[in-house]
């Protein structure tokens, strides 16, 4: 429920889903929503029971007892001697001596009925218009939406007044007015969601299973739009009640003597100073009713559409939280030009579950060296890369152990300001998708200049010149012109070149490339790999290259580390690991890769990677390993050297 990106990228959901919590359970979990629910149920039940409760007729006048104060107020504040409390109904009476409690109950009933009906009418018509417009698109969409736009062009209350003026005053007409005024709201909301749903592949799939347009609309699109309709209804109901009250307050809704919360408020307004209770009580009831409905609406929204939940959209902290016991982690300060990661451990806290995305990873990266980090999705390789400069979103991410040494500094213990000076300067990143890594509204040149000037005090013109030079170094043809282009004007390969230029422009000591060529075509990938290799040799940066493709690693890296379930399971020179894989996982994984000239069925690895919140004891690969013994499932594995440059986390390496 936290950041979806994290959920998808770094973690794997449990293979066996637990019993699904029902919508009601989720709703009930939300205390405020439950409170709202109870208040609303109480109000509704009382309002419904109004005809059979022992209360006086709401329209019976008794001018003798007019403007009697509520019983409790009389009892507390009245002076017992001169004006002994007289019981004139629990909530007192209005200016005609009618019992307020009775009128409030009947009035609530009417307000709920009118508000509810108006919501239903508006939802039905509005959703239908929105669905049809969004699903069919084209002319129909244009026609319907321009109509809706015309409705929206008038201020809604004026429109409602105009409608009532045409139809005449009365509750029923107020209902229609409110419904009509709210149709655009539903139509626009539903159309927006429908447009998104219609573009999903499953709608095309529905076409291929032989459904016609209406069947697709009803069985595929509608169920996916329904949550929005329900949420909109739940959040609008309160608003509709307010609008009903508003029209009645103006004397256009309920007509006397009929009781309605709005008209009661209107009648009490004249006596606000002499008998405040006459207007305050219906006002309070409206407030309570609308508040409870809004709480319920928020609760329903959280259940049906968790992404909209307040708080989740909030930005993560500027750096990942660290929760280490510093004294216990004393580690000799090494003198390294490159990067040393020591016993790094990163976790995600989601609800009650702890996902160990990176588990005790240590690696060394010399200056000018290229280390390939290989693993399948969910193995924790991206989280490891992000942990190095504390870029894991926090919450839910948290580094619980380890150090990251870069040039005698532990990146995990220095203050944020210092860390920000290192990010993009000494430690730079290249991510998978160049389209999202670049700002779409700024030219390539200004983004490069920004990267330079964030770390070095040079003039704009000098920085611009450097940007052009760097575009030339990453082999972008015509750099003098390209520097003025926006990212969308460049092809994917060109964009990735720009991102690489941006990463290298400050001469970083460490470059971390997270699947930089995965989104590119093979021919472009070949160009980018060649470029990276050449630039890395020129700049002597240490390169941590993350990928899932063994072929790519071979072309680029001298050493390779294989990750599985958050741990490095094998590390060594690329030729050693590829030709003589010692860990069963590496061995199996290499056999899975289809090679040109291969024959017959491909080798596979049985089963799925373990859930990161329920890692199997002992070797994490043991449940899928054909060579596993009982001891593999019992003892914890450590990374052991099988030669002076080849390390394996296995008790019986191949």
């Amino acid at each position, binding site marked *: 429920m936290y950041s979806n990106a994290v959920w998808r990228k770094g973690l794997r959901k449990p293979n066996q*889903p637990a019993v699904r919590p029902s919508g009601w359970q989720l709703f009930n979990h939300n205390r405020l929503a439950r409170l709202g629910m109870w208040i609303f149920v109480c109000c509704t039940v009382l309002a419904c029971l109004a005809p059979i409760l022992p209360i006086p007729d709401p329209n019976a006048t008794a001018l003798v007892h007019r403007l009697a104060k509520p019983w409790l107020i009389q009892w507390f504040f009245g002076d017992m001697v001169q004006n002994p409390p007289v019981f004139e109904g629990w909530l007192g009476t209005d200016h005609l001596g009618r019992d307020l409690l009775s009128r409030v109950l009947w009035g609530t009933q009417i307000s709920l009925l009118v508000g509810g009906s108006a919501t239903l009418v508006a939802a039905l018509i509005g959703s239908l218009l929105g669905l049809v417009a969004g699903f069919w698109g084209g002319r129909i969409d244009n026609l319907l939406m321009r109509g809706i736009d015309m409705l929206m062009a008038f201020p809604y209350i004026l429109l409602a007044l105009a409608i009532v003026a045409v139809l005449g005053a009365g509750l029923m007409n107020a209902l229609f007015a409110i419904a009509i005024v709210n149709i655009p709201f539903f139509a626009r909301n539903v159309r927006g969601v429908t447009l998104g749903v219609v573009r999903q592949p499953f709608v095309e799939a529905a076409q291929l299973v*032989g459904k016609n347009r209406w069947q697709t609309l009803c069985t595929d699109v509608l169920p996916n739009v329904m949550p929005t309709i329900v949420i909109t209804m739940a959040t609008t109901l309160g608003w509709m009640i307010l609008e009903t009250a508003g029209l009645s307050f103006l004397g256009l809704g309920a007509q006397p003597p009929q009781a309605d919360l709005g008209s009661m408020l209107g009648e009490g307004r004249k006596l606000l100073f002499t008998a405040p209770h006459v207007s305050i009580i219906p006002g309070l009831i409206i407030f309570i009713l609308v508040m409870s409905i809004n709480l319920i609406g928020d609760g329903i929204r959280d259940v049906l559409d968790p992404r909209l939940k307040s708080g989740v959209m909030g930005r993560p902290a500027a750096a990942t939280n660290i929760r280490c016991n510093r004294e216990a982690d004393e580690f000799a300060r090494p003198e390294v030009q490159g990067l040393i990661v020591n016993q790094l451990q990163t976790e995600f806290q989601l609800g009650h579950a702890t996902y160990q995305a990176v588990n005790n990873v240590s690696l060394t990266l010399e200056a000018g060296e290229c280390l390939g980090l290989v693993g399948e999705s969910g193995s924790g390789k991206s989280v490891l890369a992000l942990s190095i400069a504390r870029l894991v979103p926090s919450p839910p991410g948290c580094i619980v152990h380890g150090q990251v040494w870069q040039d005698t500094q532990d990146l995990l213990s220095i203050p944020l300001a210092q860390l920000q000076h290192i990010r993009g300067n000494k430690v730079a990143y290249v991510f998978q998708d160049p389209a999202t890594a670049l700002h779409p509204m700024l030219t390539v040149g200004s983004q490069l200049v920004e990267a330079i000037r964030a770390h070095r005090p040079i003039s704009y013109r000098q920085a611009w010149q450097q940007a052009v030079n760097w575009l030339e170094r990453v082999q972008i043809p015509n750099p003098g012109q390209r520097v003025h282009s926006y990212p969308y004007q460049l092809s994917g390969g060109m964009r990735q070149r720009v991102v690489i230029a941006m990463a290298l422009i400050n001469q970083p000591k460490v470059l971390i490339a997270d699947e930089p060529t995965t989104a590119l075509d093979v*021919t472009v990938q070949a160009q980018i790999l060649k470029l990276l290799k050449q630039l890395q040799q020129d700049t002597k940066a240490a390169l941590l290259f993350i990928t899932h493709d063994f072929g790519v690693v071979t072309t680029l890296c001298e050493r390779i580390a294989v990750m599985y379930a958050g741990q490095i399971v094998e590390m060594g020179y690329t030729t050693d690991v590829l030709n003589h894989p010692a860990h069963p996982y590496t061995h199996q994984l290499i056999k899975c890769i289809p090679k*040109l000239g291969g024959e017959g*069925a491909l080798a596979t690895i049985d089963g799925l990677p373990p859930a990161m919140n329920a890692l199997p004891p002992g070797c994490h690969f043991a449940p899928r390993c054909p060579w596993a013994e009982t001891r593999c499932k019992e003892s914890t594995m450590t990374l052991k050297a099988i030669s002076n440059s080849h390390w394996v986390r296995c008790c019986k390496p191949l």
Partner: protein
Amino acid sequence: MSIKHGELPLLETKQLWRTFADKHSIFRRQQQGLHVLQGIDLSINAGEVLGIVGESGCGKSTLARLLVGLDRPSQGVVYFNGLPILGNDSSSTHVLGITNKRNNIINKRNKKLLAKSIQYVFQDAVSALNPRKVVAMSLQEPMQYLLGMANKHFQPRLKQLIDQVKLPDEILQRYPHELSGGQAQRVGIARALAANPQILVLDEPVSALDVSVQAQVLNVLLELKQTHKLTYVFISHDLSVVERISQRVVVMYFGRVVEQGSVNDVFHQPCHPYTRLLLASIPKLNQSLAIEVAENSAELPDPFNPPIGCAFAPRCPRAKATCFQEKPALTAMPGEGHIAACHFPHLP
């Protein structure tokens, strides 16, 4: 798989064009059309796997969508078992890019026939399943809408389908978001098989999967082909996957077929320089990159301003003046059914 001469191909396309043109609008100047497919001729024999390779933007996905009826050709006809099933019947009378609706063969009856014979497997398996339906619901839809099966027959068939793609029965009660990528893709294949089609069009079915999972899905596909005598149109940008699964390969570049032939011919004696570039660009295990061919940094030509001559000429190391002026036609190369569109092909 050897096919007897004279036998009718199961699926055939003739001069298939797809042009994305701006609709006429009062407010907008009509722009030049975008020719995504430019005269594609293919024939797929029963029981064969035809691999289609090419880079992004070469039109291979558009072609796949045309074959299953998700999109309509601007010009050209698709024949299934010799019958025109999609496209414009009298294509010769048409001006390029303008579809005459009356001549469009596709109608409701044809659409169902098409869906029963040709099914499609999506690249993004998870979003191709309705998120509000459990797997069983998604799988029974083709039986219900295409085959008109009665509800009582669903259960055994569902079990059979899910067994065929090697998934456990409890998957049937899961929602798409509870599936892993590989499981979802196998559900997608099961759904495609539910209506007993003869042809599966697979659009990058394993590109989004990890290698170990990719191998599982490919094995399922290979096995299903044997047991069900299926015909595949397998679209991928990954040449090693295509080589493993197909008998014949079509290489596409910029909306055209540039080379076509048996896997053996195309992969071992590639004649078109683009095919050679593709093959050389694949990063191989235990082998440093053949960097010489990747030298040229030019990319796909501007689709709004298409080149007059060969579209690959700007990137081609062998390009001569002719290449920039004349479009090469597909001509026979050594090897059975091996054709390539190049003025100066690599010949053995």
